[in-house]
Each structure stands twice: as structure tokens, then as C-alpha cells.
């Protein structure tokens, strides 16, 4: 065995002296697939490492305790004070205005002297934050703002800005805010003020939507265990009483979720590209083998065993593959440093520049396993072909079926790919579904190819010679039909799938402003001013003004089970994740549709009741009569589920997961949320009309808010389009390879046919019909399989609403079909142009 392998290695190296001709597509498929997986994995890993390394400055502390109700009781206050060095920060949304001119929604951060506990706030001019926020000689408080706000309101450092009831002097612009990302979703630019100036603004009234954050810096250096210990200790006193407890490793959960989702999605595409590339690998190896037929025959005639032949060419393939995999791996290794250098201004989080070994090793392993799984078969068949058959016509020599050892090797490689995939995707169910989809696609496409060949072999009565030629090409010995159907089918499926995902997300972005959506949301409208405010809105041109009481609450228990332990479906998890807006109502809101249960009487005064959104209730597993405990303003209220409502979240009307019976919150301070519709042309006038008399009311233009959401989704779409480009490239490479496999045979056939009178137009038409038949059959499969996989990604993974756009699916398939025929003709063009005399003489 040792002798065989060493001799095989020598022979393989000798074979390689003739260069890499014939391995180009093999290498391209491998480099593309391995690079895609390595780059995505390394970048994601570098970002997550970056977040982890910078966790405490990104979050502004080792641990953060936050609440919407800033009255910790004495035990809680003592616990917080004893936990470490404390910085108290408040975040809220408000309007910043240049009186008489314009106003803008801002994300206000109220900071104390200890801020920031970690990291450095960079200001322009570079002055200390405490001095920037200090009042000036005239007693006007100072503020620092993001440059975007200066641009939006046409202001500069030194100007005055009004926030709520107070005027602030802008003393500096914020260049970099270390904990900016921990806020999660932001709607406006940052404005920072000192904690002792908040009261005067009038923004902090009972029931105002303010998040209070207590950040703790543990004595340095604090280990992860110490951080975890503090977070655990906080659970009974804070978390179980409606507070949110976050530690530094979870500094940017929203961003991390986004990165993880994107990574998962791109890894999926990368892996599929590599598997499609695997078909290219198999085709290339088969073609390479056919070119080496004489060498193999000669070796065998000279006494080489099947085993030696197998090892010689297997080693040769592995040597070439190693070259391709190294290039892919190097791309992965270089990614973090390149991303840090090129994308530091674009990415929202720091990139760790270190080498990320695991994603890169995994990509390399994927590469080798794909090569083994796809290249062993043709190799093994070569080893088993008798030398006499090799000297005869390859097309008619029936190759022997590979033996059990080959099956074992292929099985091990496939199992390895499956195991690695399990480590690549967070949810094993996705891996199972993905593997089942790939296996089913291979099986169906192979079966389809056989069916086509069978049907073609029985279609002998076509009248036209050209049609008969095209049909015959589909089933003749040595036909590329199986490999073309497989590679084209997989490639087209991915292409259709990504196009449908793209169109669904784009549609979500385009259509998420429903016709009857309000133009504005006004937050923090005090009950005493709600009536007047609504009147002002109507007078300034707004219509359909409606309002609802609004409090913030957090579900802490469901049927006495802690919220964190409730088994909840992915699409309903958000309702349990943080604070939710809640409301109360004596009567069922107009137009509401109860799916189960009854609304309470208008004068109901019994134990608290709650009306639950039907879809979220289903996700949580609630039934009528179940109990839900909600922490509101520091108090935990347990209410019984009285009914379920159908809620159309996309309507953007005032919607709440939970609506309580009014007696639940009797006497609790709260604000109202008001919505209004307006002609887009009048929106700015309305904003101006309300901003002066109501400086403490926060106006959110729905259009602006959606733009902010859309910009995030657009990044996802950009990634999908990038992935689509990779897919198309992989597909074209593989298809080109599949077609090129039989090219020399086609050139020969074309020359003989021309010798006996075939014109180029006849040959061309035969090729077009052949490729169109192949393309048509695979396009039908691709539309079905692509739609199915897109549906799974949209509904199961992205949690969006699915809409099948048949036109997109068909158009994509038709375009791809045209590309296929064109690529086919381009590849075989040389067959049509071949000079008969040259080819006939050579033979």
C-alpha cells in the first residue's frame, strides 16, 4: 500500500508537469466556493470577536440594569450602589427645534459625570464632556450633538437649540460615541445633555417613555465569571421585577442578531455554491479522465493495478485542489484585516483584526470533502475500466460500477459535510432541512435527466432531421444531459430562490407603508393636553386623528412560568424580549375583530383582564383564561386572558400586543400616543404647527421611521444581490464545465456532419433545440424548488410574509434559460466553426 501511494505520488507529479490545463473550471469552482464560505465565516467571526472584545465600551459598562420606571426601591438602589462604579444614563426620544424654523426628532441621552465608564467620547472641538454640558454664564445648559443634526437643522457649534422647554447651547459635535450601538434601533441623531438639566425640559414626566440605564463598572480586571455572577445576583431583585439585565458579552444584541442572520444566510449561499461547484468538480474530473484515457490504458497495459491508477489520479486531483483551497483560505485569512482597513467607517461595530482560524479551517475542510465526495466516483470508475476497453471507444465501453470502498469514502465525505454544516448553522433543524433539500434536489434532477434521456430515446418519429438530431443528442452514449441537468438545475434553483427572496424583501420595503397608514405618531402626549393637541392637529390640516393611552410594560411571567423559560415560536419571541407598549380600553376599538372570547363590559371592575393579539398568543401558546404577569411602572400586574384579537401589524395603526381592562391601571400615570394622517406635502407644516406649543411631545414621521428600518433591510438586500452574483458565477462556471466536457466529441460530430452536408444553421438549430429542451425541463424544476426554498427562508428564517411572484420566478427562469442557451452556444461555437480538413486529418 505504501509503495503504491508513493509510486502514485511520483506518477501524479509527472502527470502534473503537463500543466493545469483542464483544471481551470475545477479550480474556479473550488476557489469560489471555499472563498465564499471562508470570507463570510471569517468576517462574521471577526465582527463578533470585535463586539466581544469591545463589549464593555460598546455597552458602556460590564453590566447594565435598565428600566422604564426610575424608582428603584431601597433594596434595589443598595444593590446597584454596591455592585461597582455606577453611571446612570437615560435615553429617550424628543424633538429638537430651532424655534420658528425647523425641528427634528433626536435620540436624547442624559448622562451623569461618570459617563462614559468605558471607552472615550470624541468631541469636536476636543473638550471634556463635563465642560461641554455645563451651563454658560447666562445659565443656558450645554449640549453636544451628532453632526447629522447640525446638518439637518442648519446649525453650527455655538448655536442654540430647544429641547422640550429648555434652550441648550451646542458646545461641540459628537465625532464618536463609544456606546452608540447599545441603543439598538435609532430613529434620529444623538443629542446629549447633563442629568441635572432633564427636569427643566419637561420631558421627564410620569409615564414618559424614558429608559433608565444603570451601568456598572466592576473593579478592573473583571473576569467574565465575575460579570456573570453579578448578572445572576441581579436576577431576583431586578430581572424578575421587570428590569432588564444585560452583561457586556451581550453588548449589541440587535446588531449581533443581524450579523448572525446575515452570516447564516450568506453561509447557506456559499455552501450551496460550493455544492453546485462540486458538480463542476465531478464534471471536470470526468473530462480530465477522458483526456487521460490513453495514459491510463498505457499504464494498465504496462502492469499498473486499478488501485495504482486510482491513487495516481486521486493524488493529482488532491494536489490541484489544495492549490485552490489555499487561495480560498488565504482570502478568508485576509478578510478581517481587509474589512478593518476598508470598511471601518461603514460597519457599525469594530472588527477584530486577528486571524480567525476556525471559519477558515472549516471552509478548507468543506473544500476537501466536496472534492472527495464528487471526484472519487469518476476516479474509481477509471480504475475499474479494463485496458482493452480503454483502447476502444470510451462511449461504448460500459464502465464498471464502483466498489464498496468507493461508496464508503463518498459516504464518509458526505457525512463530514453534514457534520460541518451542523456547526455552520445555528439551528440543527435548518441543517436537516437544508440537507434534505439538497439530497432531494440531486435525486429529482438525476431522475429527471434519466427520464428525459428515456423519453428522448423513444422519440424517433420526429419529422425534422434537425429536431431528431437535437433529441438524439439528449440520450446518446456520452451525452452531457445528466451533468447539465444537475448543474443547471441546482444553479437555476438557487438563482430563482434568491430572486424570490430579493423580491419578497424588496416588496416588504416598498409596501410597508400601507395606504391608510398614519403619517405621524406623537409620543408622550399628556392626558391633560391630549384633547387640545388633537384639535391643533386637525386645524393644521391633519385628518383621522386618533389616540390611545400608552404605557410600557414587560411580560415577566406566563401562567407563573418566567418569561425567559417560556417555549415561544421564533416569530412571537420579540413580544417576550423587552418592554412593549401596552394600553387599556373600556370598549373594543372600532373595527377590531375578536377571534376568540368576549370583550369586557364598559364598566367592568373585577380582576384585571387582558385582550391579546391572536398571532402572538398562538406563538406563546396562550389559551383563554391563562394568566400573564406584566411589570408596568415597577409594579407586577397579573391579568387573565379574556379574548384574542386579530391584529394587522402592517397597517401601522395603533396596535398593541396587550390591551387591558381600564381598571387595571386606575390611577397609574401615563401618556397618550396620538396618530394622524396628512397629505405628504403638508407634513412639515403640521410638524411646525405642533412643535412650538407642544415642545415636549415627540413627533415621529412614519416615513422617516420606515426609512430607518429600510436602510437596515437594504443592507440585507445588498448582501442577497452579492450572493446572487456568486451563485450566477458558480452556475455559469459549472454549466460551462458541463458543456465543455463533451466539447471535443461535439466538434468531431459537427465536422463529420458538415462533411456529409450539414450546414451551420442546421447544426446551430439542433444545438439551440437541445439546450432549450434541457433548459426548459430544468427551469420548471427550478421554479418549483426555488420557490419552495425561498418560501422557507422568507417565512421560517426571516419571519416575513410570503408572497409568490410568479412573474419574477418565470422571468428569472426565462432569463436564465436564455443565458443557458447562449452559454451553451458560446461553448460549442468552436464546434460549428471547426475546420473539417484539420480535424479529419488529425484523426
Amino acid at each position, binding site marked *: 500500500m505504501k509503495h503504491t501511494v508513493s509510486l502514485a505520488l511520483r506518477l501524479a507529479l509527472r502527470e502534473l508537469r503537463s500543466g493545469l490545463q483542464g483544471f481551470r473550471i475545477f479550480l474556479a469552482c473550488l476557489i469560489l466556493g471555499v472563498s465564499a464560505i471562508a470570507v463570510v465565516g471569517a468576517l462574521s467571526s471577526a465582527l463578533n470577536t470585535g463586539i466581544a472584545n469591545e463589549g464593555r465600551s460598546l455597552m458602556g459598562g460590564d453590566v447594565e440594569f435598565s428600566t422604564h420606571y426610575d424608582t428603584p426601591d431601597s433594596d434595589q438602589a443598595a444593590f446597584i450602589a454596591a455592585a461597582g462604579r455606577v453611571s446612570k444614563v437615560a435615553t429617550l426620544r424628543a424633538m429638537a427645534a430651532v424655534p420658528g424654523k425647523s425641528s427634528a426628532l433626536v435620540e436624547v441621552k442624559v448622562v451623569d459625570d461618570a459617563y462614559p465608564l468605558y471607552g472615550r467620547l470624541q468631541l469636536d472641538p476636543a473638550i471634556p464632556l463635563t465642560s461641554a454640558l455645563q451651563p454658560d454664564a447666562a445659565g443656558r445648559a450645554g449640549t453636544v450633538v451628532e453632526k447629522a443634526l447640525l446638518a439637518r437643522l442648519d446649525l453650527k457649534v455655538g448655536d442654540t437649540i430647544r429641547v422640550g422647554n429648555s434652550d441648550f447651547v451646542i458646545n461641540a459635535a459628537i465625532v464618536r460615541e463609544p456606546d452608540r450601538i447599545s441603543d439598538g434601533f435609532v430613529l434620529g441623531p444623538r443629542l446629549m445633555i447633563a442629568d441635572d438639566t432633564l427636569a427643566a425640559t419637561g420631558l421627564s414626566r410620569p409615564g414618559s417613555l424614558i429608559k433608565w440605564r444603570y451601568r456598572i463598572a466592576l473593579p478592573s480586571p473583571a473576569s467574565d465569571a465575575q460579570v456573570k455572577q453579578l448578572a445572576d445576583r441581579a436576577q431576583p431583585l431586578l430581572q424578575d421585577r421587570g428590569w432588564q439585565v444585560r452583561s457586556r458579552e451581550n453588548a449589541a444584541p440587535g446588531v449581533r442578531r443581524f450579523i448572525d442572520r446575515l452570516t447564516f444566510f450568506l453561509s447557506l449561499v456559499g455552501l450551496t455554491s460550493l455544492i453546485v461547484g462540486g458538480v463542476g468538480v465531478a464534471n471536470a474530473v470526468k473530462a480530465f479522465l477522458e483526456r487521460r484515457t490513453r495514459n491510463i490504458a498505457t499504464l494498465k497495459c504496462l502492469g499498473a493495478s486499478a488501485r495504482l491508477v486510482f491513487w495516481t489520479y486521486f493524488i493529482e486531483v488532491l494536489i490541484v485542489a489544495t492549490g485552490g483551497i489555499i487561495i480560498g483560505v488565504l482570502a478568508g485569512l485576509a478578510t478581517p484585516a481587509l474589512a478593518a482597513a476598508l470598511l471601518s467607517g461603514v460597519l457599525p461595530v469594530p472588527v477584530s483584526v486577528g486571524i480567525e482560524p476556525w471559519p477558515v479551517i472549516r471552509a478548507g475542510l468543506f473544500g476537501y470533502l466536496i472534492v472527495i465526495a464528487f471526484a472519487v466516483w469518476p476516479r474509481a470508475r477509471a480504475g475499474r475500466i479494463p485496458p482493452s476497453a480503454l483502447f*476502444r*471507444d*470510451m*462511449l*461504448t*465501453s460500459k464502465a464498471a460500477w464502483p466498489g464498496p470502498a468507493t461508496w464508503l469514502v463518498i459516504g464518509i465525505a458526505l457525512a463530514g459535510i453534514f457534520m460541518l454544516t451542523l456547526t455552520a448553522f445555528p439551528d440543527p433543524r435548518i441543517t436537516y432541512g437544508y440537507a434534505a433539500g439538497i439530497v432531494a434536489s440531486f435525486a429529482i434532477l438525476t431522475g429527471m435527466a434519466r427520464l428525459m434521456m428515456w423519453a428522448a430515446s423513444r422519440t424517433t418519429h420526429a*419529422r*425534422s*432531421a*434537425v429536431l*431528431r*438530431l437535437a433529441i*438524439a*443528442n439528449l440520450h*446518446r*452514449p*456520452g*451525452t452531457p444531459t445528466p451533468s447539465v441537468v444537475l448543474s443547471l438545475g441546482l444553479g437555476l434553483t438557487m438563482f430563482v430562490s434568491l430572486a424570490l427572496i430579493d423580491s419578497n424583501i424588496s416588496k416588504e420595503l416598498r409596501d410597508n407603508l400601507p395606504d391608510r397608514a398614519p403619517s405621524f405618531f406623537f409620543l408622550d402626549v399628556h392626558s391633560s393636553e391630549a384633547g387640545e393637541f388633537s384639535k391643533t392637529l386637525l386645524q393644521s390640516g391633519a385628518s383621522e386623528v386618533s389616540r390611545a393611552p400608552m404605557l410600557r410594560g414587560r411580560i415577566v411571567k406566563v401562567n407563573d412560568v418566567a418569561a425567559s423559560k417560556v417555549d415561544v415560536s421564533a416569530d412571537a419571541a420579540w413580544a417576550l424580549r423587552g418592554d412593549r407598549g401596552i394600553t387599556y380600553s373600556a370598549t373594543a376599538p372600532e373595527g377590531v375583530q375578536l377571534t376568540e372570547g368576549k370583550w369586557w363590559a364598559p364598566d367592568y371592575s373585577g380582576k384585571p383582564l387582558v385582550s391579546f393579539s391572536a398571532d402572538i398568543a398562538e406563538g406563546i401558546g396562550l389559551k383563554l383564561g391563562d394568566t400573564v404577569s406584566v411589570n408596568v411602572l415597577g409594579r407586577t400586574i397579573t391579568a387573565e386572558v379574556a379574548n384574542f384579537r386579530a391584529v394587522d401589524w402592517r397597517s401601522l395603526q395603533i396596535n398593541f400586543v396587550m390591551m387591558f381592562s381600564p381598571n387595571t391601571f386606575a390611577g397609574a400615570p401615563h401618556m397618550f400616543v396620538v396618530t394622524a394622517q396628512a397629505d405628504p406635502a403638508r407634513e412639515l407644516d403640521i410638524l411646525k404647527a405642533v412643535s412650538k406649543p407642544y415642545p415636549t411631545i415627540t413627533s415621529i414621521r412614519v416615513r422617516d421611521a420606515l426609512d430607518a428600518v429600510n436602510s437596515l433591510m437594504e443592507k440585507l438586500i445588498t448582501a442577497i444581490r452579492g450572493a446572487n452574483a456568486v451563485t450566477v458565477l458558480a452556475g455559469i462556471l459549472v454549466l460551462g464545465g458541463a458543456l465543455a466536457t463533451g466539447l471535443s*466529441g461535439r466538434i*468531431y*460530430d459537427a465536422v*463529420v*456532419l*458538415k*462533411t*456529409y*452536408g*450539414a*450546414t*451551420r*444553421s*442546421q447544426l446551430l*438549430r439542433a444545438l439551440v433545440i437541445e439546450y432549450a429542451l434541457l433548459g426548459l425541463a430544468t427551469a420548471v424544476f427550478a421554479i418549483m424548488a426555488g420557490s419552495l426554498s425561498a418560501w422557507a427562508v422568507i417565512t421560517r428564517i426571516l419571519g416575513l410574509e410570503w408572497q409568490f411572484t410568479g412573474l419574477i420566478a418565470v422571468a428569472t427562469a426565462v432569463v436564465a434559460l436564455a443565458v443557458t442557451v447562449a452559454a451553451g452556444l458560446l461553448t460549442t461555437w468552436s464546434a460549428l466553426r471547426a475546420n*473539417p*480538413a484539420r480535424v*479529419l*486529418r488529425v*484523426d
Partner: protein
Amino acid sequence: MDARVDKTKTDNLRPHDTGHGTGDAVRLDAVQVTLASRAGPVEILKGIDVCITRGEAVSVIGPSGSGKTTLLMVIAGLEAATGGTVHVASQTLNGLSEDQLAVFRRDNIGIVFQSFHLIPAMTALENVAVPLELRGTDDAFGVARDHLKRVGLDHRLDHYPGQLSGGEQQRVAIARALAAGAKIILADEPTGNLDQETGHTIMDLLFDLQSGGDTTLVLVTHDPDLASRCSRTIEIRDGLIHSDSATRP
């Protein structure tokens, strides 16, 4: 339909009046073929003048590299003459497009190669039927079957070339050359890849099929015995006609 369209094209070609009489199957006037090579242009044929009448059986002999096969390729329209004029079957081949030449071959020429040049992915029957299909012959497979029967291969209709012996493959090639009713048969070393006995059988077959009508045979060979079976022998040396038995005193 496809083939019929092409036939109309050839009809347009037919009126060429070569002015060389109607008895000539092939007439070459000062034909030259010069091919480009890395070492510079190579003159293969240096001025060939030859006239072959209908029904004649002509052998072309000469040493390797003398230009025999090129001469055959020029007559078949597979190689373009770089000088002189080529008249075959009352048509002037100079200046015809590739497709016009293909149609010309389809209607007039049958070729038998040393290496048979059957299409490996087609059965014997399909290989013979192809030129007929390209012509748009109604019963292409029936005619092909008859011709395979004539060459004694009616039991091998569905065999692929790789499943046939060399002699059998050459018989398929002969059936293919004759099936479409070609008036001129060009044979390039048809027995070169066959053993002596099979070679004799093949040549008997070829001469039998040719001698029946006014079919012209041009046979390139190294074999003097084979050459002597033809009514006329042309010897080529270094791209020129060294001797022609028709003009020998």
C-alpha cells in the same frame, strides 16, 4: 424542411457554366494549396491540372506528404484552393461559402476515410441515415437500411461504431458514402486500417458498387495492387503530378 431550404440554395449554384463540357466529373486548373505554418508558408499543391470524366475510377498514388490527401480534400471542398480553379460536378467551388460547400457535398460527394469517421454516438443505421436526413429524404432510415443490407450489415443496424470491427465500420462508411446517391466517391486510404483480407473484401465491395453506374471514384492509396484495379492512375510527387496513366504515351 430544413434540408429543403438548403436545396434551393444549391439550385442557385447549379447554373454555373464552367465551360468545360458536361463529361467532366472533376476538373482542376493550376490548383495550388499553400498552408501557413510556424516555419512559414508551406506549399502542399503547386499547380495541379487534372480532368476526371464521369464514371472513371482513378487512383492517386505517391509518397507520404506528397499532397494526395490534400488533393482529395480540395475536390471534396473540405480544403480551399489558394490558387487555380476547382470544378467538380459542374460547379466551381472557388468562392463558395462553408454552407454552400456543405450542401454541395451533400448532393454530390460521398467520402470514405481511412479512419472511417463515423459518429461514435450514433448507431450504424443513424450514421448512414444522417446525409439522407440532411437532404430531407422522406424515408431516410429505409434507404439507409437498404444500403447497410447491400454491404452485408443488416444484422448490425443498432450497433454503435465502438461495437463494430474495423472492416464493419468501413462498410458502414461506404454505405454512408453511397446512400445519398453521390455521383463522386472519394476514398482516402480506405483499407489503410484494415488487414489485407478485409481490405480486399472492402475494395471489392466499393468497386462493385461503383461500377454499376456512372459513379466516379477517386481513390488515394499507397497500395500498388489496389491502384492497379483502377482504370487510371495519377502519381503525385512534391505537390505536382508526376505521372498520369491517361496521358502516358
